[in-house]
């Protein structure tokens, strides 16, 4: 996933799920891959398109894995994260 091979990553995840692998474990691995991607971005080996592709792959993996997650698997406190961009330059001072 960190090498940004979308099809291979998603096919692998489908195979793992079919074999009964732990969906939470898959998501943890995906998160580690994202950290690797971020690391490469900081080292200027990866650039914005790579971050974008990585997030697309993560989205794809999450969509495959989500139906197999049980409520009990949710760990830790659930927090709300809001992502946005500045709509009006004047309001940021």
């Amino acid at each position, binding site marked *: 996933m960190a090498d940004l091979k979308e099809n291979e990553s998603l096919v692998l995840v489908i195979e793992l799920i079919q074999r009964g692998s732990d969906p939470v474990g898959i998501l943890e691995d995906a998160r580690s891959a994202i950290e690797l991607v971020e690391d490469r971005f900081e080292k200027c080996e990866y*650039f*914005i*398109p790579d971050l974008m*592709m990585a997030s*697309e792959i993560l989205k794809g993996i999450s969509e495959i894995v989500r139906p197999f997650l049980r409520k009990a698997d949710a760990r830790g406190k659930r927090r709300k994260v809001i992502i946005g961009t500045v709509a009006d330059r004047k309001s940021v001072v």
Partner: protein
Amino acid sequence: MGKSPEEFGVEREQRVRDAIALRLPDRVPIVPMFQFFPAFYAGITPYEAMYHYEKAFMAWKKTILDFEPDLYAGPAVFRSGPVLETLDCKQLRWPGHGIDPHHSYQFVEAEYMPAEEYDEFIENPSDWIIRRYMPRIYGALKPFQNLPGILDQFYYYGAPSAGLATMGTPEVQEAFQSLLKAARESFKWVSGLASFVQEMKKLGFSPMFFIATYAPFDLIGDNFRGTRGMMLDMYRRPDKLLAAIEKTTGLTIQMATRRAVAGGIPIIFIPLHKGAEGFMSLDQFETFYWPSLRKLILGICDAGLIPYVYTEGSYTSRLEFLQNVPRGKVMYHFERVDMRRAKEILRDVACITGNVPNSLLISGSPDQVKDYCKKLIDTAGEGGGFVMDAAACIDEAKPENIRAMMDLTREYGIYRR
């Protein structure tokens, strides 16, 4: 007898031509890429500049006469508010229409072309543009999406086919009426621009360029697929993207060369957007961005015209690519670049310009500006092949800082008397 204004005008043009051709001019030319600065300088709002043409012309005339650049960008950069409004343009927000009257317009990027339409575009770009793209970017032309293809509309063995009737529906008629209204307004705007150019020519000042084109990657990326679409296309459908870029390359060359008039201004403006550092890797630049851009540059040179390649963002890592163009025929503008390195690599190839930070022109002091320009002349201007300009298009800036940039260049940038 002193020189006439027209004679000064010829001198100014020659100065810039010499710098581009890598001949030593009398001094470093100055061509600041003003955008909305003339409006602020002359005390009008960007809204007035876009909606009241006579005020726009007044602002540019005042700016040009007060600062005396060697060439000027001109009032066309303001665009016409009425034309955009008549077409109900979705791709821009401008003062009076989504932006307050005191700020310049903004480009609204979106995915106007879904990935599934690549083949349609490649097969027949004009058809895709008229029947898919225009309806999405111009609200007034939405009914064009109901038109069948051009051959289906017009022609079957000498007579217009039944498809012509689609142009007779009330909605399509209204769309054509809007187009006509916009065209009439545009004619008014362009006639005003032409008179302005004539007037300024008599006063000794010529425009930098009339014609602009796109890097082929940007034509698709800025206007059709958007940043996100384009970035993902490099991974998900590289062959399709390259095919579209190949098709677009011919179009961008035509854009540059078809409208060029014999004896007119030979400079063609090409702003570069998506190939900058951070927006793609060097490999992606080499695969997707540069080859088609190079073909465009060569196509423009072959037509006897001068590509003015206006890089934006950081370009130091890409300098070696830029070297591979005909000598003395190209001007490269830089925003953030190691100018010493740029000079090293491009000294015997192309003229370079830009780099004076806009932040300095906005909030620095005249002495700081002069200091920066002096160092720039020493590194980038050494031996010629350099034109003084800011790093990016100039909207806000303290007039005294612009004056400092102009004065320093005229006093310190002398090569020969």
